[in-house]
Protein backbone atom coordinates (compact mmCIF):
# COMPACT_ATOMS: atom_id res chain seq x y z
CA UNK A 1 0.00 0.00 0.00
CA UNK A 2 2.77 2.47 0.95
CA UNK A 3 4.54 1.85 -2.37
CA UNK A 4 1.30 2.41 -4.23
CA UNK A 5 0.98 5.86 -2.67
CA UNK A 6 4.58 6.73 -3.45
CA UNK A 7 4.13 5.82 -7.10
CA UNK A 8 0.85 7.67 -7.25
CA UNK A 9 2.50 10.93 -6.13
CA UNK A 10 5.50 10.46 -8.42
CA UNK A 11 3.62 9.57 -11.55
CA UNK A 12 0.81 12.08 -11.81
CA UNK A 13 2.00 12.90 -15.33
CA UNK A 14 0.71 9.60 -16.72
CA UNK A 15 -2.76 8.29 -17.38
CA UNK A 16 -4.35 7.18 -14.11
CA UNK A 17 -7.59 5.29 -14.55
CA UNK A 18 -9.76 3.46 -12.03
CA UNK A 19 -13.22 1.99 -11.60
CA UNK A 20 -15.73 1.92 -8.78
CA UNK A 21 -15.24 -1.30 -6.78
CA UNK A 22 -18.31 -3.54 -6.61
CA UNK A 23 -18.64 -6.64 -4.43
CA UNK A 24 -19.80 -8.59 -7.52
CA UNK A 25 -16.27 -8.18 -8.94
CA UNK A 26 -14.13 -8.91 -5.84
CA UNK A 27 -13.08 -12.43 -6.80
CA UNK A 28 -12.43 -11.65 -10.44
CA UNK A 29 -10.22 -8.69 -9.52
CA UNK A 30 -8.21 -10.73 -7.03
CA UNK A 31 -7.82 -13.58 -9.52
CA UNK A 32 -7.01 -11.60 -12.68
CA UNK A 33 -5.36 -8.45 -11.26
CA UNK A 34 -6.66 -6.21 -14.06
CA UNK A 35 -4.45 -3.41 -15.28
CA UNK A 36 -6.03 -0.49 -13.42
CA UNK A 37 -4.39 2.28 -11.42
CA UNK A 38 -6.86 2.50 -8.56
CA UNK A 39 -10.24 1.49 -7.23
CA UNK A 40 -12.79 3.75 -5.61
CA UNK A 41 -15.23 2.70 -2.91
CA UNK A 42 -18.15 4.36 -1.19
CA UNK A 43 -16.92 4.90 2.35
CA UNK A 44 -20.31 3.99 3.85
CA UNK A 45 -20.04 0.44 2.49
CA UNK A 46 -16.99 -0.21 4.68
CA UNK A 47 -18.14 1.18 8.02
CA UNK A 48 -18.99 -2.21 9.52
CA UNK A 49 -16.70 -3.62 12.20
CA UNK A 50 -15.30 -6.55 10.20
CA UNK A 51 -16.10 -9.50 7.98
CA UNK A 52 -16.25 -9.91 4.23
CA UNK A 53 -16.22 -6.25 3.02
CA UNK A 54 -13.03 -5.50 4.93
CA UNK A 55 -11.39 -8.84 4.08
CA UNK A 56 -11.82 -8.16 0.37
CA UNK A 57 -10.89 -4.51 0.54
CA UNK A 58 -7.74 -5.34 2.54
CA UNK A 59 -6.76 -7.88 -0.11
CA UNK A 60 -7.45 -5.54 -3.04
CA UNK A 61 -5.61 -2.59 -1.49
CA UNK A 62 -2.52 -4.81 -1.17
CA UNK A 63 -2.20 -4.37 -4.94
CA UNK A 64 -4.04 -1.15 -5.80
CA UNK A 65 -4.24 2.40 -4.45
CA UNK A 66 -7.64 3.33 -3.08
CA UNK A 67 -9.82 6.37 -3.55
CA UNK A 68 -12.42 6.85 -0.80
CA UNK A 69 -15.67 8.48 -1.88
CA UNK A 70 -18.17 9.56 0.78
CA UNK A 71 -21.87 9.72 0.00
CA UNK A 72 -23.36 10.52 3.38
CA UNK A 73 -21.66 13.51 5.01
CA UNK A 74 -24.30 16.03 3.86
CA UNK A 75 -21.75 18.79 3.36
CA UNK A 76 -24.41 21.08 1.88
CA UNK A 77 -26.75 20.52 4.82
CA UNK A 78 -28.08 23.48 6.78
CA UNK A 79 -27.51 21.61 10.04
CA UNK A 80 -24.27 20.52 11.67
CA UNK A 81 -22.34 17.54 10.34
CA UNK A 82 -23.13 14.22 12.00
CA UNK A 83 -20.06 13.89 14.25
CA UNK A 84 -20.57 10.17 14.83
CA UNK A 85 -20.65 9.56 11.10
CA UNK A 86 -17.57 11.70 10.57
CA UNK A 87 -15.73 9.62 13.18
CA UNK A 88 -16.72 6.40 11.40
CA UNK A 89 -15.44 7.93 8.18
CA UNK A 90 -12.16 8.75 9.90
CA UNK A 91 -11.81 5.12 11.01
CA UNK A 92 -12.21 3.87 7.43
CA UNK A 93 -9.89 6.61 6.18
CA UNK A 94 -7.15 5.87 8.74
CA UNK A 95 -7.40 2.12 8.19
CA UNK A 96 -6.96 2.26 4.40
CA UNK A 97 -5.05 5.55 3.95
CA UNK A 98 -6.58 6.31 0.55
CA UNK A 99 -4.71 8.35 -2.05
CA UNK A 100 -7.85 10.45 -2.59
CA UNK A 101 -10.86 11.32 -0.49
CA UNK A 102 -13.90 13.00 -2.01
CA UNK A 103 -17.45 14.03 -1.11
CA UNK A 104 -20.30 15.92 -2.77
CA UNK A 105 -21.57 19.46 -3.00
CA UNK A 106 -24.98 18.25 -1.86
CA UNK A 107 -26.99 17.44 1.23
CA UNK A 108 -28.62 14.17 2.25
CA UNK A 109 -29.57 14.58 5.91
CA UNK A 110 -32.00 17.01 7.49
CA UNK A 111 -33.02 17.12 11.15
CA UNK A 112 -31.91 13.57 11.77
CA UNK A 113 -33.40 11.94 8.66
CA UNK A 114 -31.07 10.49 6.02
CA UNK A 115 -32.60 10.62 2.52
CA UNK A 116 -30.01 8.54 0.63
CA UNK A 117 -29.82 10.93 -2.30
CA UNK A 118 -27.50 13.77 -3.23
CA UNK A 119 -29.84 16.73 -2.93
CA UNK A 120 -29.19 20.20 -4.36
CA UNK A 121 -28.73 23.47 -2.51
CA UNK A 122 -29.08 27.11 -3.52
CA UNK A 123 -25.81 28.95 -4.08
CA UNK A 124 -25.71 32.04 -1.86
CA UNK A 125 -23.10 33.69 0.36
CA UNK A 126 -24.74 31.95 3.34
CA UNK A 127 -24.68 28.44 1.91
CA UNK A 128 -21.11 29.14 0.78
CA UNK A 129 -20.15 29.89 4.36
CA UNK A 130 -21.91 26.77 5.65
CA UNK A 131 -20.26 24.51 3.07
CA UNK A 132 -16.83 26.02 3.87
CA UNK A 133 -17.35 25.41 7.61
CA UNK A 134 -18.26 21.78 6.92
CA UNK A 135 -15.28 21.21 4.63
CA UNK A 136 -12.94 22.77 7.21
CA UNK A 137 -14.32 20.35 9.79
CA UNK A 138 -13.89 17.33 7.50
CA UNK A 139 -10.34 18.29 6.51
CA UNK A 140 -9.36 18.94 10.12
CA UNK A 141 -10.85 15.65 11.29
CA UNK A 142 -9.23 13.58 8.55
CA UNK A 143 -6.00 15.62 8.56
CA UNK A 144 -5.93 15.86 4.78
CA UNK A 145 -7.23 17.68 1.74
CA UNK A 146 -10.57 16.50 0.39
CA UNK A 147 -12.03 16.84 -3.10
CA UNK A 148 -15.53 18.28 -3.56
CA UNK A 149 -17.64 16.94 -6.44
CA UNK A 150 -19.92 19.07 -8.62
CA UNK A 151 -23.48 17.69 -8.46
CA UNK A 152 -25.94 16.72 -11.14
CA UNK A 153 -29.20 18.61 -10.89
CA UNK A 154 -32.72 18.53 -12.31
CA UNK A 155 -33.91 21.87 -10.95
CA UNK A 156 -32.55 25.31 -10.05
CA UNK A 157 -33.20 27.55 -7.05
CA UNK A 158 -34.52 31.03 -7.61
CA UNK A 159 -32.78 31.90 -4.32
CA UNK A 160 -29.30 31.33 -5.86
CA UNK A 161 -27.13 34.41 -6.30
CA UNK A 162 -23.85 32.72 -7.30
CA UNK A 163 -23.14 30.41 -10.24
CA UNK A 164 -22.11 26.83 -9.45
CA UNK A 165 -18.62 27.25 -10.92
CA UNK A 166 -18.06 30.48 -8.95
CA UNK A 167 -19.36 28.76 -5.81
CA UNK A 168 -16.93 25.86 -6.25
CA UNK A 169 -14.08 28.26 -6.97
CA UNK A 170 -14.75 30.22 -3.77
CA UNK A 171 -15.04 27.01 -1.72
CA UNK A 172 -11.69 25.76 -3.03
CA UNK A 173 -10.01 29.09 -2.33
CA UNK A 174 -11.47 29.48 1.15
CA UNK A 175 -10.86 25.94 2.38
CA UNK A 176 -7.92 24.70 0.30
CA UNK A 177 -9.95 21.69 -0.80
CA UNK A 178 -9.53 20.23 -4.27
CA UNK A 179 -12.34 19.48 -6.70
CA UNK A 180 -13.69 16.34 -8.28
CA UNK A 181 -14.96 17.16 -11.75
CA UNK A 182 -17.76 14.78 -12.68
CA UNK A 183 -18.00 15.22 -16.44
CA UNK A 184 -21.28 13.30 -16.70
CA UNK A 185 -22.78 15.56 -14.01
CA UNK A 186 -21.71 18.60 -16.04
CA UNK A 187 -23.50 17.23 -19.10
CA UNK A 188 -26.61 16.20 -17.13
CA UNK A 189 -26.92 19.51 -15.24
CA UNK A 190 -26.21 21.72 -18.23
CA UNK A 191 -28.74 19.85 -20.37
CA UNK A 192 -31.32 20.09 -17.61
CA UNK A 193 -30.92 23.77 -16.80
CA UNK A 194 -30.15 24.97 -20.31
CA UNK A 195 -26.52 26.05 -20.36
CA UNK A 196 -23.66 24.85 -22.55
CA UNK A 197 -21.48 22.14 -20.98
CA UNK A 198 -18.40 23.50 -22.75
CA UNK A 199 -19.06 26.96 -21.28
CA UNK A 200 -19.45 25.38 -17.82
CA UNK A 201 -16.16 23.50 -18.21
CA UNK A 202 -14.29 26.64 -19.25
CA UNK A 203 -15.70 28.48 -16.23
CA UNK A 204 -14.88 25.56 -13.89
CA UNK A 205 -11.87 26.24 -11.62
CA UNK A 206 -9.93 23.39 -13.26
CA UNK A 207 -6.66 24.25 -11.55
CA UNK A 208 -8.15 22.66 -8.39
CA UNK A 209 -9.25 19.39 -10.02
CA UNK A 210 -7.69 16.28 -8.45
CA UNK A 211 -9.94 13.65 -10.02
CA UNK A 212 -12.58 13.24 -12.71
CA UNK A 213 -15.63 10.98 -12.80
CA UNK A 214 -17.38 9.49 -15.81
CA UNK A 215 -20.65 7.59 -15.75
CA UNK A 216 -23.84 6.87 -17.67
CA UNK A 217 -27.11 8.76 -17.62
CA UNK A 218 -30.74 8.02 -18.52
CA UNK A 219 -33.11 10.15 -20.60
CA UNK A 220 -36.59 11.32 -19.62
CA UNK A 221 -39.09 14.00 -20.55
CA UNK A 222 -40.85 16.46 -18.23
CA UNK A 223 -44.52 17.50 -18.31
CA UNK A 224 -43.67 20.34 -20.73
CA UNK A 225 -42.28 17.92 -23.31
CA UNK A 226 -38.67 18.98 -22.60
CA UNK A 227 -36.05 16.25 -22.56
CA UNK A 228 -34.02 15.99 -19.40
CA UNK A 229 -31.32 13.65 -18.15
CA UNK A 230 -31.02 11.58 -14.99
CA UNK A 231 -27.66 10.75 -13.43
CA UNK A 232 -28.30 7.00 -13.29
CA UNK A 233 -24.82 5.35 -13.15
CA UNK A 234 -26.40 2.32 -14.81
CA UNK A 235 -24.88 2.19 -18.31
CA UNK A 236 -21.97 3.13 -20.55
CA UNK A 237 -20.68 6.69 -20.81
CA UNK A 238 -22.53 8.46 -23.64
CA UNK A 239 -20.79 9.85 -26.74
CA UNK A 240 -21.41 13.53 -25.90
CA UNK A 241 -19.86 12.94 -22.46
CA UNK A 242 -16.76 11.35 -24.05
CA UNK A 243 -16.44 14.47 -26.25
CA UNK A 244 -16.75 16.68 -23.22
CA UNK A 245 -14.20 14.52 -21.41
CA UNK A 246 -11.60 15.36 -24.08
CA UNK A 247 -12.02 19.05 -23.28
CA UNK A 248 -11.95 18.28 -19.53
CA UNK A 249 -8.67 16.38 -19.98
CA UNK A 250 -7.00 19.30 -21.68
CA UNK A 251 -8.28 21.79 -19.07
CA UNK A 252 -7.28 19.64 -16.06
CA UNK A 253 -4.04 18.42 -17.67
CA UNK A 254 -5.24 14.85 -17.49
CA UNK A 255 -6.50 14.36 -13.95
CA UNK A 256 -6.95 10.74 -12.69
CA UNK A 257 -10.25 9.41 -13.98
CA UNK A 258 -12.79 7.00 -12.54
CA UNK A 259 -15.62 5.10 -14.20
CA UNK A 260 -18.72 4.92 -11.98
CA UNK A 261 -21.28 2.17 -12.56
CA UNK A 262 -23.36 1.65 -9.43
CA UNK A 263 -26.70 0.30 -10.66
CA UNK A 264 -27.38 -2.70 -12.90
CA UNK A 265 -23.72 -3.55 -12.32
CA UNK A 266 -22.32 -5.19 -15.48
CA UNK A 267 -19.77 -7.96 -16.02
CA UNK A 268 -16.34 -6.71 -15.01
CA UNK A 269 -15.06 -6.82 -18.60
CA UNK A 270 -17.69 -4.28 -19.69
CA UNK A 271 -16.72 -1.92 -16.90
CA UNK A 272 -13.04 -2.46 -17.67
CA UNK A 273 -13.50 -1.59 -21.34
CA UNK A 274 -14.96 1.77 -20.29
CA UNK A 275 -11.84 2.36 -18.21
CA UNK A 276 -9.68 1.42 -21.21
CA UNK A 277 -11.54 3.96 -23.35
CA UNK A 278 -10.83 6.67 -20.76
CA UNK A 279 -7.19 5.58 -20.67
CA UNK A 280 -6.82 5.94 -24.43
CA UNK A 281 -8.06 9.56 -24.26
CA UNK A 282 -5.71 10.34 -21.38
CA UNK A 283 -2.75 8.67 -23.10
CA UNK A 284 -3.40 10.62 -26.29
CA UNK A 285 -3.34 13.83 -24.25
CA UNK A 286 -0.09 12.92 -22.47
CA UNK A 287 1.56 11.88 -25.76
CA UNK A 288 0.65 15.19 -27.38
CA UNK A 289 1.83 17.08 -24.34
CA UNK A 290 5.12 15.14 -24.30
CA UNK A 291 5.64 15.90 -27.98
CA UNK A 292 5.03 19.59 -27.41
CA UNK A 293 7.55 19.63 -24.55
CA UNK A 294 10.16 17.85 -26.70
CA UNK A 295 9.57 20.27 -29.58
Amino acid at each position, binding site marked *: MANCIKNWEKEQARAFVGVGLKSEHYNEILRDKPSLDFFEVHAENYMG*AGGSPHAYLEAITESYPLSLHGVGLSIGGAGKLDRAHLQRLKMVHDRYQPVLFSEHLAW*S*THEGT*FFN*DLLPLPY*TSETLRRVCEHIDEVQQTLGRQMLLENPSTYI*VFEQSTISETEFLSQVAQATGCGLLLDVNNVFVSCTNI*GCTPEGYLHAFPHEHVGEMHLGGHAEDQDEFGSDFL*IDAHDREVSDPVWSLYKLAISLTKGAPTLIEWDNDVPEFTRLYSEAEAARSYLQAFHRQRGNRHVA
Partner: protein
Amino acid sequence: MLPSVDMKKANNSIQAHNELQKAFSLGLIDSRREVPTGIVKSRGIISKKRFDVYRNNVMASLIEALAANYPAVQKLVGDDYFKALASIYIYSQPPSQPVLYEYGESFAQFLASFPGLVDFPYLESVAKLEWSWLSSFHSADDRSFDFSNEENRLGKPIGDCQFRPTKSVRLICCDYDVTGAYIRNTSANINCEIMRLYSSKKDEHYQDLAVGPAYYLFVRPDLSPELYCLDMAGFELFNELVRGKSLNEALVKAASKSTPNGELDAQEFLEKLFSSNTLVLSG
Protein backbone atom coordinates in the same frame (compact mmCIF):
# COMPACT_ATOMS: atom_id res chain seq x y z
CA MET B 1 -9.99 31.95 5.53
CA LEU B 2 -13.76 32.33 5.45
CA PRO B 3 -15.26 35.58 4.20
CA SER B 4 -16.20 37.97 7.06
CA VAL B 5 -19.88 38.11 7.83
CA ASP B 6 -22.60 40.08 9.63
CA MET B 7 -23.64 37.48 12.25
CA LYS B 8 -27.25 38.67 12.64
CA LYS B 9 -27.79 38.57 8.90
CA ALA B 10 -25.99 35.22 8.72
CA ASN B 11 -28.20 33.68 11.40
CA ASN B 12 -31.33 34.80 9.55
CA SER B 13 -29.94 33.37 6.34
CA ILE B 14 -28.96 30.07 7.94
CA GLN B 15 -32.50 29.89 9.21
CA ALA B 16 -33.74 30.51 5.66
CA HIS B 17 -31.42 27.74 4.39
CA ASN B 18 -32.76 25.45 7.10
CA GLU B 19 -36.39 26.31 6.27
CA LEU B 20 -35.78 25.64 2.58
CA GLN B 21 -34.24 22.23 3.32
CA LYS B 22 -37.11 21.47 5.65
CA ALA B 23 -39.63 22.25 2.90
CA PHE B 24 -37.57 20.17 0.44
CA SER B 25 -37.42 17.27 2.93
CA LEU B 26 -41.16 17.30 3.55
CA GLY B 27 -41.76 17.38 -0.20
CA LEU B 28 -39.51 14.34 -0.64
CA ILE B 29 -41.47 12.05 1.60
CA ASP B 30 -44.97 13.35 0.89
CA SER B 31 -45.76 13.37 -2.83
CA ARG B 32 -49.06 15.24 -2.24
CA ARG B 33 -47.11 18.37 -1.30
CA GLU B 34 -46.42 21.18 -3.76
CA VAL B 35 -42.91 21.68 -5.09
CA PRO B 36 -41.22 23.97 -2.50
CA THR B 37 -41.12 27.69 -3.29
CA GLY B 38 -38.21 28.83 -5.41
CA ILE B 39 -37.49 25.41 -6.95
CA VAL B 40 -37.97 25.68 -10.70
CA LYS B 41 -37.01 24.13 -13.99
CA SER B 42 -36.07 27.57 -15.28
CA ARG B 43 -37.14 31.08 -14.32
CA GLY B 44 -40.73 30.96 -13.04
CA ILE B 45 -41.51 27.47 -14.42
CA ILE B 46 -42.24 24.79 -11.84
CA SER B 47 -41.78 21.19 -12.96
CA LYS B 48 -43.28 18.63 -10.61
CA LYS B 49 -41.88 15.83 -12.72
CA ARG B 50 -38.33 17.06 -12.24
CA PHE B 51 -38.78 17.41 -8.49
CA ASP B 52 -40.23 13.89 -8.58
CA VAL B 53 -36.81 12.58 -9.68
CA TYR B 54 -35.59 13.33 -6.15
CA ARG B 55 -38.75 11.85 -4.61
CA ASN B 56 -38.34 8.68 -6.63
CA ASN B 57 -34.61 8.41 -5.93
CA VAL B 58 -35.19 8.67 -2.20
CA MET B 59 -38.04 6.18 -1.99
CA ALA B 60 -36.68 3.70 -4.56
CA SER B 61 -33.19 3.65 -3.05
CA LEU B 62 -34.49 3.18 0.49
CA ILE B 63 -36.85 0.39 -0.60
CA GLU B 64 -33.88 -1.22 -2.34
CA ALA B 65 -31.78 -0.88 0.83
CA LEU B 66 -34.50 -2.50 2.94
CA ALA B 67 -34.94 -5.27 0.37
CA ALA B 68 -31.16 -5.89 0.45
CA ASN B 69 -31.43 -6.33 4.23
CA TYR B 70 -34.60 -8.47 4.10
CA PRO B 71 -34.43 -10.55 0.89
CA ALA B 72 -36.36 -13.52 2.33
CA VAL B 73 -39.24 -11.34 3.56
CA GLN B 74 -39.32 -9.71 0.11
CA LYS B 75 -39.52 -13.09 -1.60
CA LEU B 76 -42.17 -14.40 0.78
CA VAL B 77 -44.53 -11.43 0.39
CA GLY B 78 -43.71 -10.72 -3.28
CA ASP B 79 -42.04 -7.67 -4.86
CA ASP B 80 -45.11 -5.44 -5.16
CA TYR B 81 -46.35 -6.08 -1.66
CA PHE B 82 -42.84 -5.56 -0.29
CA LYS B 83 -42.59 -2.19 -2.05
CA ALA B 84 -45.88 -1.02 -0.54
CA LEU B 85 -44.92 -2.38 2.88
CA ALA B 86 -41.44 -0.84 2.76
CA SER B 87 -42.86 2.56 1.71
CA ILE B 88 -45.06 2.63 4.80
CA TYR B 89 -42.17 1.57 7.02
CA ILE B 90 -39.81 4.15 5.48
CA TYR B 91 -42.42 6.88 5.84
CA SER B 92 -42.89 6.09 9.53
CA GLN B 93 -39.29 5.19 10.41
CA PRO B 94 -36.83 6.71 7.92
CA PRO B 95 -33.10 6.04 8.37
CA SER B 96 -31.29 8.34 10.76
CA GLN B 97 -27.79 7.78 9.42
CA PRO B 98 -26.13 6.85 6.10
CA VAL B 99 -24.93 3.28 6.75
CA LEU B 100 -27.87 1.46 5.21
CA TYR B 101 -26.98 -2.11 6.17
CA GLU B 102 -27.73 -0.84 9.66
CA TYR B 103 -31.17 0.39 8.63
CA GLY B 104 -34.34 -1.52 9.48
CA GLU B 105 -33.66 -2.97 12.93
CA SER B 106 -37.32 -2.48 13.89
CA PHE B 107 -38.69 -4.04 10.68
CA ALA B 108 -39.50 -7.39 12.36
CA GLN B 109 -41.57 -5.59 14.99
CA PHE B 110 -43.25 -3.52 12.25
CA LEU B 111 -44.22 -6.72 10.38
CA ALA B 112 -45.65 -8.22 13.57
CA SER B 113 -47.91 -5.22 14.13
CA PHE B 114 -48.88 -4.56 10.49
CA PRO B 115 -52.65 -5.21 10.18
CA GLY B 116 -52.41 -6.56 6.62
CA LEU B 117 -50.05 -9.35 7.75
CA VAL B 118 -52.12 -10.70 10.60
CA ASP B 119 -52.42 -14.07 8.79
CA PHE B 120 -48.65 -14.33 8.33
CA PRO B 121 -47.31 -14.07 11.89
CA TYR B 122 -44.19 -16.11 11.03
CA LEU B 123 -42.77 -13.22 8.94
CA GLU B 124 -41.56 -11.57 12.12
CA SER B 125 -39.39 -14.63 12.83
CA VAL B 126 -37.98 -14.62 9.30
CA ALA B 127 -37.13 -10.91 9.65
CA LYS B 128 -35.44 -11.53 13.01
CA LEU B 129 -33.21 -14.14 11.39
CA GLU B 130 -32.39 -11.82 8.49
CA TRP B 131 -31.41 -8.96 10.80
CA SER B 132 -29.23 -11.30 12.90
CA TRP B 133 -27.50 -12.65 9.78
CA LEU B 134 -26.73 -9.09 8.63
CA SER B 135 -25.44 -8.07 12.02
CA SER B 136 -23.24 -11.19 12.23
CA PHE B 137 -21.99 -10.63 8.66
CA HIS B 138 -20.66 -7.15 9.52
CA SER B 139 -19.50 -7.94 13.06
CA ALA B 140 -15.91 -7.53 14.22
CA ASP B 141 -13.46 -10.30 13.37
CA ASP B 142 -12.82 -12.56 16.35
CA ARG B 143 -10.84 -15.72 17.00
CA SER B 144 -12.52 -18.55 18.85
CA PHE B 145 -11.07 -21.00 21.38
CA ASP B 146 -9.16 -23.72 19.57
CA PHE B 147 -10.02 -26.80 21.61
CA SER B 148 -7.59 -29.10 19.82
CA ASN B 149 -4.53 -26.87 20.41
CA GLU B 150 -5.29 -25.00 23.58
CA GLU B 151 -6.93 -27.52 25.89
CA ASN B 152 -3.62 -28.46 27.52
CA ARG B 153 -2.90 -24.83 28.39
CA LEU B 154 -6.08 -24.27 30.36
CA GLY B 155 -4.51 -25.16 33.73
CA LYS B 156 -7.87 -26.39 35.06
CA PRO B 157 -10.64 -28.70 33.94
CA ILE B 158 -12.49 -27.26 30.97
CA GLY B 159 -15.80 -27.42 32.85
CA ASP B 160 -14.46 -24.86 35.37
CA CYS B 161 -13.53 -22.38 32.62
CA GLN B 162 -15.59 -19.38 31.55
CA PHE B 163 -16.22 -18.62 27.89
CA ARG B 164 -17.82 -15.74 26.08
CA PRO B 165 -19.40 -15.99 22.62
CA THR B 166 -17.28 -14.70 19.73
CA LYS B 167 -18.27 -11.26 18.42
CA SER B 168 -20.17 -12.68 15.46
CA VAL B 169 -22.48 -14.84 17.60
CA ARG B 170 -26.14 -13.80 17.52
CA LEU B 171 -28.66 -15.68 19.68
CA ILE B 172 -32.26 -15.48 18.55
CA CYS B 173 -35.49 -16.80 20.03
CA CYS B 174 -38.38 -16.84 17.53
CA ASP B 175 -42.10 -17.51 17.93
CA TYR B 176 -42.00 -19.71 14.81
CA ASP B 177 -39.59 -22.30 13.53
CA VAL B 178 -38.98 -20.84 10.08
CA THR B 179 -35.65 -22.52 9.28
CA GLY B 180 -36.67 -23.99 5.93
CA ALA B 181 -38.64 -20.94 4.77
CA TYR B 182 -35.73 -18.69 5.69
CA ILE B 183 -32.96 -20.75 4.08
CA ARG B 184 -34.92 -21.25 0.87
CA ASN B 185 -35.75 -17.57 0.43
CA THR B 186 -32.71 -15.66 1.62
CA SER B 187 -30.21 -14.49 -0.99
CA ALA B 188 -27.24 -15.66 1.13
CA ASN B 189 -25.92 -19.18 0.84
CA ILE B 190 -26.35 -20.41 4.40
CA ASN B 191 -24.93 -23.49 5.97
CA CYS B 192 -27.37 -24.76 8.59
CA GLU B 193 -26.87 -27.40 11.30
CA ILE B 194 -28.85 -28.75 14.22
CA MET B 195 -27.09 -28.46 17.58
CA ARG B 196 -29.17 -29.78 20.48
CA LEU B 197 -28.18 -30.44 24.08
CA TYR B 198 -31.06 -32.91 24.31
CA SER B 199 -31.41 -34.78 21.06
CA SER B 200 -34.19 -37.03 19.86
CA LYS B 201 -34.78 -38.79 16.57
CA LYS B 202 -37.57 -36.45 15.53
CA ASP B 203 -35.25 -33.48 16.02
CA GLU B 204 -32.83 -34.54 13.33
CA HIS B 205 -34.46 -32.46 10.58
CA TYR B 206 -35.21 -28.80 10.78
CA GLN B 207 -38.72 -27.46 10.36
CA ASP B 208 -39.96 -25.66 7.31
CA LEU B 209 -42.58 -23.61 9.09
CA ALA B 210 -44.02 -24.50 12.49
CA VAL B 211 -45.30 -22.86 15.62
CA GLY B 212 -42.28 -22.39 17.90
CA PRO B 213 -40.63 -21.33 19.98
CA ALA B 214 -37.46 -21.86 17.99
CA TYR B 215 -33.93 -21.09 19.10
CA TYR B 216 -31.16 -20.08 16.75
CA LEU B 217 -27.54 -19.09 16.74
CA PHE B 218 -25.58 -17.39 13.98
CA VAL B 219 -21.81 -17.47 14.02
CA ARG B 220 -19.29 -16.35 11.43
CA PRO B 221 -16.31 -18.73 11.45
CA ASP B 222 -14.75 -16.89 8.51
CA LEU B 223 -16.66 -14.61 6.11
CA SER B 224 -20.11 -16.22 5.92
CA PRO B 225 -22.41 -16.53 8.95
CA GLU B 226 -23.58 -20.09 9.66
CA LEU B 227 -26.88 -20.98 11.28
CA TYR B 228 -27.37 -23.44 14.15
CA CYS B 229 -30.80 -24.61 15.27
CA LEU B 230 -30.60 -25.01 19.05
CA ASP B 231 -32.94 -26.54 21.56
CA MET B 232 -34.04 -24.50 24.54
CA ALA B 233 -31.35 -26.04 26.75
CA GLY B 234 -28.62 -25.19 24.25
CA PHE B 235 -29.94 -21.64 23.98
CA GLU B 236 -30.00 -21.27 27.77
CA LEU B 237 -26.47 -22.63 27.98
CA PHE B 238 -25.26 -19.74 25.82
CA ASN B 239 -27.21 -17.25 27.89
CA GLU B 240 -25.57 -18.60 31.06
CA LEU B 241 -22.11 -18.34 29.48
CA VAL B 242 -22.86 -14.71 28.53
CA ARG B 243 -23.76 -14.15 32.20
CA GLY B 244 -20.26 -15.29 33.15
CA LYS B 245 -21.00 -18.81 34.40
CA SER B 246 -18.42 -21.57 34.02
CA LEU B 247 -19.17 -24.27 31.45
CA ASN B 248 -20.27 -26.77 34.14
CA GLU B 249 -22.47 -24.22 35.90
CA ALA B 250 -23.98 -23.20 32.56
CA LEU B 251 -24.75 -26.82 31.68
CA VAL B 252 -26.50 -27.45 35.01
CA LYS B 253 -28.45 -24.16 34.85
CA ALA B 254 -29.44 -24.74 31.23
CA ALA B 255 -30.77 -28.20 32.04
CA SER B 256 -32.74 -26.93 35.05
CA LYS B 257 -34.30 -24.01 33.13
CA SER B 258 -35.45 -25.95 30.10
CA THR B 259 -37.93 -28.68 29.40
CA PRO B 260 -35.79 -31.55 28.13
CA ASN B 261 -36.97 -33.21 25.00
CA GLY B 262 -35.06 -36.42 24.34
CA GLU B 263 -31.75 -37.75 25.70
CA LEU B 264 -29.07 -35.51 27.21
CA ASP B 265 -26.10 -35.57 24.86
CA ALA B 266 -23.67 -33.07 26.35
CA GLN B 267 -20.64 -34.76 24.78
CA GLU B 268 -21.83 -34.29 21.21
CA PHE B 269 -23.15 -30.80 21.95
CA LEU B 270 -19.82 -29.68 23.41
CA GLU B 271 -17.86 -31.16 20.53
CA LYS B 272 -19.98 -29.18 18.10
CA LEU B 273 -19.71 -26.12 20.27
CA PHE B 274 -15.93 -26.18 20.26
CA SER B 275 -15.63 -26.89 16.57
CA SER B 276 -18.04 -24.17 15.49
CA ASN B 277 -15.99 -21.09 16.38
CA THR B 278 -18.53 -19.83 18.83
CA LEU B 279 -16.58 -19.43 22.07
CA VAL B 280 -13.61 -17.50 23.39
CA LEU B 281 -11.92 -18.44 26.67
CA SER B 282 -12.58 -15.61 29.13
CA GLY B 283 -11.53 -16.97 32.51
